[in-house]
């Protein structure tokens, strides 16, 4: 099976995000970055399918030079090669614009399966995979926890709301967006890290993909969210704060 996995590099969840000087995006100076976690689950699923059925795993990632680190991480975990769509203005593109870049980078590969995470941890739009399926003309399913190869295509386990699930059968080629938690994520081994250095990373300039369009929605401002409640902060030593909290819970809100 030839599998393409679209991955994204996002600010590390423990790094402090600050609003940038333009007020339209975050300040990228001093940010730490990591692989978007749902995409790490998509990569894991791809590697498991390859181990079981053979084939090739190609990772595709759009972004500036810094995403090279995330691409190397994916190669170290076991992906065979990578396509880096070089693009310095990812944040200025809407979900359709980003999906167009990835779809055009993937199209000439003709993969049997395209995987990506269900959403990104930075923008959380949750759309890239579904739009790519539309652009590539592939059947798709979302929020997938398990993937099984059948004689005619795939059988997948889809998560529904409130603890319900569903199996779905679909022909290949197909696109799936992967929900987190379906598998255990692997770590890169030392050998994997060493091998990754010699694996092919092909770079493609975004402008050369013929997918340039102006955005249909503009992110025009980022701000701190409005507080929904006025939080009463309890200070002091852990013991003092704990005593104050229990006092409030017992006598003010009477929930203990």
């Amino acid at each position: 099976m030839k599998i393409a996995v679209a991955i994204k590099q996002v600010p590390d969840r423990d790094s402090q995000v600050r609003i940038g000087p333009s007020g339209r995006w975050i300040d990228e100076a001093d940010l730490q970055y990591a692989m978007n976690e749902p995409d790490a689950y998509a990569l894991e699923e791809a590697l498991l399918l390859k181990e079981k059925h053979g084939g090739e795993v190609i990772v595709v990632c759009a972004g500036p030079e810094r995403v090279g680190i995330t691409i190397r991480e994916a190669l170290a975990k076991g992906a065979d090669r990578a396509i880096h769509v070089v693009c310095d203005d990812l944040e200025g593109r809407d979900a359709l614009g980003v999906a167009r870049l990835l779809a055009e980078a993937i199209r000439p590969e003709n993969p049997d399966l395209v995987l990506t995470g269900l959403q990104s941890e930075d923008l959380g739009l949750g759309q890239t995979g579904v739009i790519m399926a539309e652009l590539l003309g592939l059947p798709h399913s979302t929020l997938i926890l398990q993937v099984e190869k059948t004689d005619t295509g795939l059988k997948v386990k889809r998560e529904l709301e409130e603890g319900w699930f569903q199996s779905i059968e679909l022909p290949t080629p197909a696109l799936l967006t992967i929900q987190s938690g379906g598998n255990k994520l692997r770590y890169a081994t030392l050998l994997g890290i060493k091998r990754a250095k010699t694996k092919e990373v092909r770079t493609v300039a975004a402008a050369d993909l013929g997918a340039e369009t102006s955005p249909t929605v503009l992110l025009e401002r980022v701000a701190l969210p409005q507080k929904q409640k006025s939080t009463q902060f309890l200070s002091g030593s852990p013991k003092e704060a704990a005593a104050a909290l229990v006092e409030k819970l017992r006598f003010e809100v009477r929930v203990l």
Partner: protein
Amino acid sequence: MSGVLVVLEERGGRIGRPGWEAAAAAPQLAGPEFIAAAVVGAKTEALAAEAASGPFAKVLRVEHPLLAPYTADGFKLALEQLIRAESPDFVVFPHTYQVRDYAPALAARFGQALVSDVVGIEPGPVFVRQLMQGRLAGSYRPQSHPCFVSVQAGSFRAEHPEAQAGASAAIAVFTPVLAPEQIRTRPSEPFRGSAKGVDLSAAQRIVSVGRGIRDAANLPIAQELASAMGAELAASRPICDLGWLPMERQVGSSGQTVAPKLYLAAGISGAIQHLVGIKGSQCIVAINKDPEAPIFEVADYGIVGDLFELLPAITEAVKSAV
């Protein structure tokens, strides 16, 4: 029509709450005479009758045998035809798992990007949605029409349908052209995961842990507090993904929705998927080392500090008080 088309969603044979909430967002985009609703399925008569009691000028029954069960292909193609016929300026959806499955592809067929998971609408219109796991809010301005928007659960107060008694919108049938070979996926009947061992929705008190607990070996300090308070132990999604607690103890949009008297969140940053599951809580206490964690935006009481010191201290305080 210009105006707004609200796509309602069926839940157990009725219009689900998320659909009513999407309807509640529509008046910020157009006057009531310009708001229509769509119900989609193989049999939509009862749904349409229920929808007609809502705040709509008309209700469109998008009906075809191939629209049950739900498939992304079927819904996408049927709604594309409806939207081309009706030409609304805005199409508003609830941000459900089903909508996430087809609406981005539907919008792409119009050369548009869905503005997903909207929590507020400002004049313009400008759509506000969360970024960076709730640490920031982003304002999005559409550049052209039709504009596709999905609204987050709980962000708009749903009009209670009964309160609209007497209101009765016109109902029309729209029959899309669909062929069996256009439906490429074959879904099974939904099934429940493992038998539900714990019903968190009925719990009066919940102690919930997130990534801040760092290791499964640290869970006993949270369990001890839960036991002292007479509370259930729960967790955010990552803890269950890692297998540290069973999935049935997960709170949030992909787990259980809870409404306890007391919800104590320890080491949970407060991504929107978690927050939507705890909105019904009477009192929320947040403990986190990061004073900017979004969980504090919904908390009644907050303690900024180390949960490894605070949880045992609270356990002691509860034991000596109660």
